[in-house]
């Protein structure tokens, strides 16, 4: 996955992400595709959560999966979640949950609760930082005011790190699937290419077209990419495009 929160020259915030899923799950030698990734694409839909006929928040879902991986609370904040691999991963959390130790929350339910109950960027950030979970994760949160963007690196108990856009010293913050203070695995470095494309784009071109271009650039776009979602918090808009990576394209 690759998530980006970026701010244009006027202080308007945009949040976009590629959702990559299906690594090692059945490589189709003939078609050069991952079996699960292909099966997931037709399941993607935007869901408009409404109460009293009014939108509370909008999210991108795989049909049947009720947790949230990408969402916008119009005018308030945006959220995406990138997978964080860890030996002390969700596996242990599931076993604990089965054994009756249920203090940790399922990742997808924590994000949904956050969307429903948090009414500010800071509140969402606090909730995603402090709540105990079954599995580690990266939460990328964007707000509605200048400078509001962060990456929360989570282990199961708490945040290991909160990296703010201001700390990054840039007009954007970008996360793939590695701790930002460590180098990514060299065979899976989408971070460096994505940063280069962002720098090429420049802050003058921040907006849906510019960021979509970055997320459509190989290897940021790869054979695991199922969709690109684009969110603009002040307008409350969410647009999701199915993504395909024609050959030649790196498998992950």
């Amino acid at each position, binding site marked *: 996955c690759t998530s980006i929160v970026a701010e244009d020259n006027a202080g308007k915030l945009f949040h976009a992400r590629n959702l990559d899923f299906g690594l090692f799950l059945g490589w189709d030698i003939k078609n050069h595709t991952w079996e699960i990734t292909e099966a997931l694409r*037709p399941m993607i839909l935007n*869901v408009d959560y409404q109460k009293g006929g009014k939108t509370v928040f909008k999210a991108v879902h795989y049909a*049947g999966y009720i947790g949230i991986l990408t969402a916008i609370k119009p005018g308030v904040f945006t959220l995406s979640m990138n997978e964080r691999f860890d030996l002390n991963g969700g596996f242990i959390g599931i076993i604990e949950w089965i054994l009756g130790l249920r203090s940790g929350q*399922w990742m997808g339910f924590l994000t949904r609760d956050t969307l429903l109950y948090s009414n500010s960027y800071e509140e969402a950030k606090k909730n995603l930082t402090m709540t105990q979970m079954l599995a580690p994760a990266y939460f990328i949160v964007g707000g509605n005011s200048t400078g509001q963007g962060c990456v929360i690196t989570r282990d199961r108990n708490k945040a290991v790190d909160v990296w703010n856009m201001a700390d990054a010293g840039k007009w954007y913050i970008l996360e793939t699937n590695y701790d930002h203070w460590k180098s990514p695995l060299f065979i899976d470095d989408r971070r460096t290419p994505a940063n280069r494309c962002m720098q090429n784009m420049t802050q003058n071109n921040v907006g849906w077209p510019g960021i979509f271009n970055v997320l459509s*650039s190989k290897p940021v776009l790869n054979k695991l990419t199922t969709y690109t979602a684009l969110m603009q918090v002040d307008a409350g808009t969410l647009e999701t*495009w199915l993504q395909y990576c024609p050959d*030649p394209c790196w498998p992950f």
Partner: protein
Amino acid sequence: VQGQVPPFKETCVTNAYPPSEKSHLVPTYVLNLDLPPTQRWQNLAKDKGSQIKTLLKKFIEFAEDFGNGTVNTIINYLNKQGDSMDTTLPQPYADEMRGIATASGLGLGEVIIYNLFYEVFTV
């Protein structure tokens, strides 16, 4: 397929948006939070039930092939105990999953496994 070996030289595209294939724009489904949780996903689960079933079957096959004995034990446990698991889950999610199971014809245990895919694959 690979085109190049790492480290990659990125190709920053400049004209990808909007994609010319309008069919790649995903549809929107309205979920009414005023409905009882068991009914919220009903229509969607009916429409997509067979696809969810196929996907879940693949998930389980790959998890079993790729994982170790513990993965299989967890999946078997959830499959067998599924119908009684909703008492251990927070609301409204327990009822939402039960609603999806009823509308799609899947077992509750299967819907729970499907909804745990993130946690399973973080290893």
